[in-house]
């Protein structure tokens, strides 16, 4: 029997597991898949839009409505959690000030607010007068340099100043005859110094005018390649995250998972939790679908960080019934009827549905805690559509840190 079983290997599950292991708990982390972190943009958002663009995310956190997942935490807890993550992963991977948003170009040419970013990205932080030399790679279909440059050139920096952009392309297969590599394949090649040098020369020769050279987010699977490339290219360089497989996302996920493993957490990946047993109102074990048949994992406390609709932890059946799929936890709505509507750009309240908790992060039915030793964190929580407000990462980290703290503190 372990002290804690953590379910989920996304940002929330990994964070909770690491915090608990560092606090001396014996922890098993069990997860079906790898979570959103490795698919996502590789930065740490706190709050990007409310729906106006947020310049100072902690100030915005202080002003969220009471039903928001941040409301029970407050800006200080959020700042502490995110700062911990930044310092834990180190300045090779995450830099920035949680109190101030960066505004980084996306692979469509929008300016996306985020709190912490990788050092290979921050040179692109938009400010009036900045010009971008966008350079696409013919082999990489997810970085449309002309569209990115065109949209940046029509944009205004958050400080109100103008932006400029040019577009250019390099045609450089990472491996002979490979016309359609994934970003990950290309990134692996850029970990090779000889290829990185050739790439840098090609980019240097091709890039148009601009203060910062904007490149697809494939600058090495390992952190650090960006710096070298910038030296060779002779201008500041910034990489732009692409659609999955997202190399910057993988860098964060790999680094965090390595730390979780190093801290002594027992990790069971590829293992879905399918149910649980209870002892009174306490969760006694969770059932894991494993090779050779189901297995029960017992623990004193459980952290449930299974993500939301995108991970399948929250599901809608063909008759519209919304359910949490492992514990059957109460949700803010049980029926999807009327929660999605015909207007694509309008909010879709279905994706606001989730679990509500007490101040300790335990699911509640009404105001009653469902299981006193079950804590939830991350995307499973009810709240505004996280992709709209760009809050998923901050919520995941801060609520995972809270769950760990409550277990460490022995909250009952």
């Amino acid at each position: 029997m372990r002290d804690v079983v953590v379910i989920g290997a996304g940002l929330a599950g990994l964070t909770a597991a690491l915090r608990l292991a560092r606090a001396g708990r014996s922890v098993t982390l069990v997860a079906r898949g790898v979570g959103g972190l490795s698919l996502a943009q590789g930065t740490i958002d706190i709050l990007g839009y409310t729906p106006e663009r947020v310049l100072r995310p902690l100030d915005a956190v202080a002003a969220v409505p009471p039903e928001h997942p941040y409301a029970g935490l407050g800006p200080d807890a959020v700042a502490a959690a995110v700062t911990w993550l930044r310092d834990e992963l180190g300045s090779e991977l995450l830099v920035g000030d949680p109190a101030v948003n960066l505004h980084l170009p996306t692979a469509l040419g929008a300016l996306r607010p985020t709190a912490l970013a990788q050092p290979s990205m921050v040179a692109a932080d938009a400010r009036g007068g900045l010009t971008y030399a966008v350079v696409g790679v013919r082999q990489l279909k997810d970085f449309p340099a002309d569209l990115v440059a065109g949209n940046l050139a029509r944009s205004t920096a958050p400080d109100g100043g103008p932006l400029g952009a040019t577009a250019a392309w390099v045609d450089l297969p990472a491996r002979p005859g490979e016309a359609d590599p994934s970003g990950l394949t290309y990134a692996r090649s850029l970990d090779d110094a000889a290829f990185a040098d050739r790439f840098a020369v090609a980019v240097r020769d091709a890039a148009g005018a601009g203060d910062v050279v904007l490149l697809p987010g494939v600058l090495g699977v390992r952190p650090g390649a960006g710096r070298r490339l910038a030296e060779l290219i002779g201008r500041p360089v910034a990489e732009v995250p692409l659609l999955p497989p997202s190399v910057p996302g993988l860098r964060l996920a790999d680094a965090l998972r390595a730390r979780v493993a190093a801290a002594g957490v027992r990790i069971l990946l590829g293992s879905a939790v399918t149910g649980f047993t209870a002892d009174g109102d306490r969760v006694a074990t969770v059932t894991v679908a494993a090779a050779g048949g189901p297995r029960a994992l017992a623990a004193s406390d459980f952290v449930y960080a299974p993500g939301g609709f995108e991970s399948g932890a929250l599901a809608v059946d063909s008759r519209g019934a919304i359910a949490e799929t492992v514990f059957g936890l109460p949700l803010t709505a049980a029926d999807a009827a009327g929660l999605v509507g015909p207007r694509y750009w309008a909010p879709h309240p279905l994706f606001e549905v989730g679990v509500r908790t007490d101040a300790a992060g335990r699911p509640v039915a009404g105001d009653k805690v469902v299981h006193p030793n079950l804590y939830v964190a991350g995307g499973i929580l009810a709240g505004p559509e996280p992709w709209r407000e760009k809050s998923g990462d901050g919520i995941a980290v801060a609520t995972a840190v809270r769950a760990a703290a409550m277990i460490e503190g022995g909250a009952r």
Partner: protein
Amino acid sequence: MRRLAADVVVVGGGSTGAGVVRDAAMRGYTAVLVDRSDLAQGTTGRFHGLLHSGGRYVVSDPGSATECARENAVLSRIQAPAIERTGGLFVSVPGDDPGYGDRFLAGAAATGVPAREIPVAEALRREPRLNRGISRAIEVEDASVDGWQLVWGAVNSARAYGAKVLTYHPVTRIDIADGRVRAVHCHDQRRDEEVVIECAFVLNCAGPWAGRITDLAGLPPVPVIPGRGIMIALNHRVVNTVVNRLIYPTDGDILVPVHTVSVIGTTDVKESDPDHLPIPAAEVQQMLDAGERLIPGFRRARAVHAWAGSRPLIRDDRVAADDTRHMSRGMAVVDHLTRDGVAGLLTIGGGKLTTYRLMAEHIVDAMGDQRGERRPCRTADEEIPYAEGSRHYVVTHRLADREADRLDDQIVCECELMSRRMFTDLLHREPLATLDDLRRQLRLGMGPCQGGFCAGRAAGIAVTERVVDAERATGLLRLFLKNRWIGLWPILYGAQVRQTALDHWLYAGTLDIEHLPTPDQEVVR
């Protein structure tokens, strides 16, 4: 203002209009086809995808059955690449009257519809997901047809015969003087220009909008009653043959494998406005129940998209009941000379996509009657040229194409295996197209991810190819996502919820599409 002249203007670029413009051009008339939008985006882009064998009508409507059987054979010959010879089955599921099968077989024999009862075990071997409780199975020659390929093929053939095709040219007025049609006015929406086409004949093939066209000519109303039906596509082929219930035709009794998906349908509900066709939740449930009866577990399969189309039925008291010269079962040609005293205007309504060629033959014959001449119809004799040659479509063809070019081309849409070259070739041929217009020919964004990965790529390529600028590309992308959503939200359950959440993470989360510089006006075409 631009002026053109033609013998005949065909209004509507659905299957009917496409067949008519081809037929007219082949008979030597100078013809112009106009549509208010792109080709085959009306009913023809929102139908069920079944090339009827006639089986559905052998009891209820023998005349239609015979027509379908004949046209099925003709179209298979003249436009094979638009058709997949899936074959079809009629099956009795538990609760269906097994005696209907005998009436069906008798009807098939009487109408000339090829049909053969096969052992239940054989049907289950062919289609292992079928309800194990079926008691009878009859094999027919149903096939699956791509309405877009069918229309583009016919229209390209018409062009080769000199016809002109003007899309995004809504008709705004029809000039009539001294009891004759004189000209059609339309608005070239993409150049914002008025176009006047002088002509002696207008063939109104506007489907459910046909009544609006006769209104534009100032005629007494032609009542068109749109009969709306919904369809739902699953993300893969749960069957490889068309599966019909062996019962008198009703709602939700057909499951059609179309390309990589399978489509359940349909319903029939009277509507007032063909531009606003809802997909009501109750009908979605009805279709899922219907699917469940044919394929147990249907509700747990993944639905990727739903759509609604409306049947263009004309109910016209002004046409004498015995004036059936140009009518065949289920279709009607309204001659506005006998009806309203206006020469040069004919309206066609009803019909099926399967019989589109025959409908065209009827209306062009009717035009000949008015002109006092009879030029023979040749549309059944001549094969329509397709780049793919004369082979029938097979679902795996793109895999084969991909195998051939995998070292030198990129895949833009993974779900539908659409390559970059396929996309850029069409883009340069149709530089004014929207992404939806291109989608209908290429299947861009029609698979499980519904554009999650490919739509942004496509927009980006269009800028790189210098076909559009960044502002229009962004507008086109927004329009595409908005349009995909119309068919997504009504069936948002199961795995598609997960997909949709991922797509939102991609577009709103990673790419922040909502905060690209906003256009003064949304791109609408």
